[in-house]
């Protein structure tokens, strides 16, 4: 099985990630501060709404949704755009291209070690903490399985979007500008900052059709729904699957076309 060469990259990634403990610690502080702010902000919003349920979500639901969105962000932020942009600008991309592995896979598996570290050190503790604090508001059952499947697809979709955006760096000299645009669009339209349920109806129907909704909104809604009917389940996962396949193809194709355009300074 050829999986072994990929897992070697994963292992290297784990070792690398464990080297940067101070940065990880500061990340945790940052996330905590963010959680404190959203906790009080949404508390104030729910207090002034007068009802316990706003847009079909209770305060607990919203909080779990946003807290886990933050934890998921650790998986989603792969810095692919920076990695690719810098490689293209510095010419290092040449070295990546002659590796006996497809560059798209290579970059993904290089980062995969961080998935493991993130899962055990951020996601799992956050998830358990949320379960305890909200006192069992997170339903435990089959929905965890759907959630896991959904997250895997979300990661793949997000990676395709990142890879696509990174490919744009072949044409532009700008990494920061391209990356910030992508980040803003993804965070807003995926429901990572505000659950999509709160969006005004017209906007929501449009946003739900876009690939971004599959990144955060799909897994988190599946997680919060203790007894999903098979229609919504099929629709959400199906939608994710379609985006997963089509975004992979689009980003692959775009890279293939752009590859001919890469110019690297000699010297």
């Amino acid at each position: 099985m050829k999986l072994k060469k990929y897992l070697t990259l994963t292992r290297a990634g784990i070792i690398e990630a464990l080297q940067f403990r101070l940065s990880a610690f500061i990340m945790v502080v940052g996330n905590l501060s963010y959680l404190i702010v959203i906790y009080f902000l949404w508390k104030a919003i729910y207090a002034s709404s007068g009802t316990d349920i706003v847009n079909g979500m209770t305060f607990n639901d919203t909080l779990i949704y946003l807290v886990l969105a933050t934890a998921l962000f650790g998986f989603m932020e792969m810095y692919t755009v920076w990695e690719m942009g810098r490689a293209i600008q510095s010419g290092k991309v040449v070295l990546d291209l002659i590796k006996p592995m497809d560059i798209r896979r290579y970059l993904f598996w290089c980062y995969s070690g961080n998935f493991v570290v993130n899962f055990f050190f951020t996601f799992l503790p956050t998830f358990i903490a949320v379960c305890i604090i909200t006192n069992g508001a997170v339903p435990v059952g089959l929905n965890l399985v759907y959630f896991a499947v959904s997250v895997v697809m979300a990661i793949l979709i997000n990676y395709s979007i990142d890879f696509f955006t990174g490919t744009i760096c072949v044409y532009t000299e700008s990494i920061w500008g391209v990356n910030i645009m992508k980040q803003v669009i993804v965070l807003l339209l995926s429901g990572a900052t505000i659950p999509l349920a709160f969006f005004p109806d017209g906007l929501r129907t449009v946003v739900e059709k876009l690939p971004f909704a599959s990144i955060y909104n799909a897994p988190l809604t599946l997680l919060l729904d203790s007894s999903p009917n098979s229609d919504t389940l099929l629709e959400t996962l199906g939608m994710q699957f379609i985006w997963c396949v089509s975004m992979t193809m689009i980003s692959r194709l775009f890279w293939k076309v752009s590859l001919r355009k890469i110019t690297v300074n000699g010297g």
Partner: protein
Amino acid sequence: MKRKSLRFYFRIYRKILAQDIKSKMSYRADFIISTIGMIFTNVAGFISFWILFRRFPSINGWSYHEMLFLYGFSLVSLTPVQCLFDNNWSLRQYVYTGDFIKYCFRPINLFFYFQSEVFDIKGLGQFAFGIGTLVYSWNKIGLDFTPLILLKVIVFLITASLIMIALQNAAAATCFWIQNSFYVLDLVYRFRDYAKYPITIFNPVFKFIFTFVIPIAFIAYYPSLVILRPDDIPLLSWLSPLFGLVFFWLSYKFWMHGALKYNGTGS
């Protein structure tokens, strides 16, 4: 060493600024894309604000337009840190590579020379956006407009901006001790997003923290009270200009302390 006059510094700033803009203009595509990216960020921030608060008549006693005022105020007071002190983000690279030493040999103020080297034009879009929001909410709330109020707004905006500048200086200066200050800077950068919420939504503990430890409440909340609630202005609002100056002075001393103990990389 003779102290240079303010006029001297002003003249020098103009010259350095012109060079910086020229060099930026030679990467035109990057400049345009970054500017668009910045506009994206502002628009997305505004959209999330609108989605969150549009349907609630008031949050914690703050009407929609008053919240908008706070938002606009924070945007404007965060502009100087974006435009004038952007070089702080590069400080760690200069320190790491040893290039920082070049700043130590100029017969002008080290801090001034370092910060003057970069002017981030992108921030001006945010400035325009903030002013627009302020004017709009000003009209909607039906606030008076007299020269005295205008003077107050300007004074409070400028002193409020010093808070974020101070936080960023201090964060950037940590690289003199811990090398990679990116995570500290990024953490502080996230705090600025919280400035737009009224501090009253927090519980006493965090109210205290956000007032005295991480003083983000002085970026928009306390200074805005002078305009928004002229009948009932707490002492802290009047003191906010003083706080701005004190924090800025402290961060300057901290930054200089790090810079003066810097002794290069030895090559």
